[in-house]
């Protein structure tokens, strides 16, 4: 199965308190996001909404990843729940205007999961439909 690395423009919209903190720690270890990824920070996952995601796509992004704190760990308590629901609603909107749903992904994380964040970004590729073998 081809492991095509997708380097099309990706916008990473994330909560400062989790993703932002994680990126800061990665920077201390001299590691950073790949060049094709643009980092857009928000104070809390609860502020991420349809407009922000649509504007990211309009600005040329081929993929958008939304990241907020893990359930129950959100400082504003409802931030992660709102981010999850807003992202789901926006995915429906994207499908309706001809942008495949997989191009918008939602993840939750904690500040110590910087490595996971980098792995998610790399693994953010189109779902492989024509995979042979199991149905």
């Amino acid at each position: 199965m081809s492991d095509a690395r997708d380097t099309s423009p990706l916008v990473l919209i994330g909560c400062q308190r989790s993703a932002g903190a994680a990126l800061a720690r990665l920077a201390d270890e001299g590691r950073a996001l790949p060049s094709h990824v643009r980092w857009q920070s928000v104070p809390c996952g609860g502020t991420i909404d349809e407009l922000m995601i649509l504007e990211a796509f309009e600005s040329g992004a081929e993929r958008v990843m939304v990241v907020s704190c893990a359930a129950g760990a959100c400082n504003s308590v409802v931030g992660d729940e709102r981010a999850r629901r807003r992202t789901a609603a926006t995915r429906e909107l994207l499908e309706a205007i001809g942008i495949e749903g997989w191009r918008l992904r939602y993840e939750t994380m904690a500040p110590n999961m910087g490595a996971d964040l980098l792995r998610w970004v790399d693994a953010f590729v189109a779902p492989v439909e024509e995979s042979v073998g199991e149905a």
Partner: protein
Amino acid sequence: MIVAERKPIAEILANLRQASSVAVVGCDTCVAVCMAGGTKEVAVLSAALRLAARQEGREQLITEACVERQCEVEFNEPLAELVAEHDVILSMACGVGVQTLAEQYPSAVVYPALNTKFMGRPEELGTWSERCLGCGNCVLDKFGGVCPITRCSKNLLNGPCGGSQDGICEVDPSIPCAWQLVYDRLVAIGQLERLWQVEPPKDWTTSRDGGPRKVVREDIVP
């Protein structure tokens, strides 16, 4: 307030595919309060329309605008130029705003972006429910401040019907039985005996059944 909801995107797009330019005009009063057609919703819809055009390889100019209240001609006047320059005006106001624009700019093609629902109030953040259908002759005094015309699925005046169970309307579990609410309220304010008199048939001429209505205040008409 008037409560409305955005139409499904596919339905909106179906009207716009032939247009080379669309003006998306919002309204910052009722539909902004119910987060359907205010400044921000104009931005969201416009972004979606631009992306849809890009995906379908269509050249389409999308212009965003928003007025204080689209049911007032004075607030719509500044749109004159915009209307002239665009093939389609996509109004994000309630049905009243859409029609005001259509009347004010007879040659303009005006399409609604929202489904106007009802007069009601927010029950909690993000949830609105109907309270008044404008029957033109208010009976709230007789029923403890709960309107059976609007909130009873069969607008009974001598309710409840046989299907009221545990305070829930037979038609839909999310609908409280209006007559349970009337009963509870009248018991609470000590006016239950009002329900013993037979309420005569309603004169529906004051409602929409009497034809589209007008309110004229002779003392105010210039």
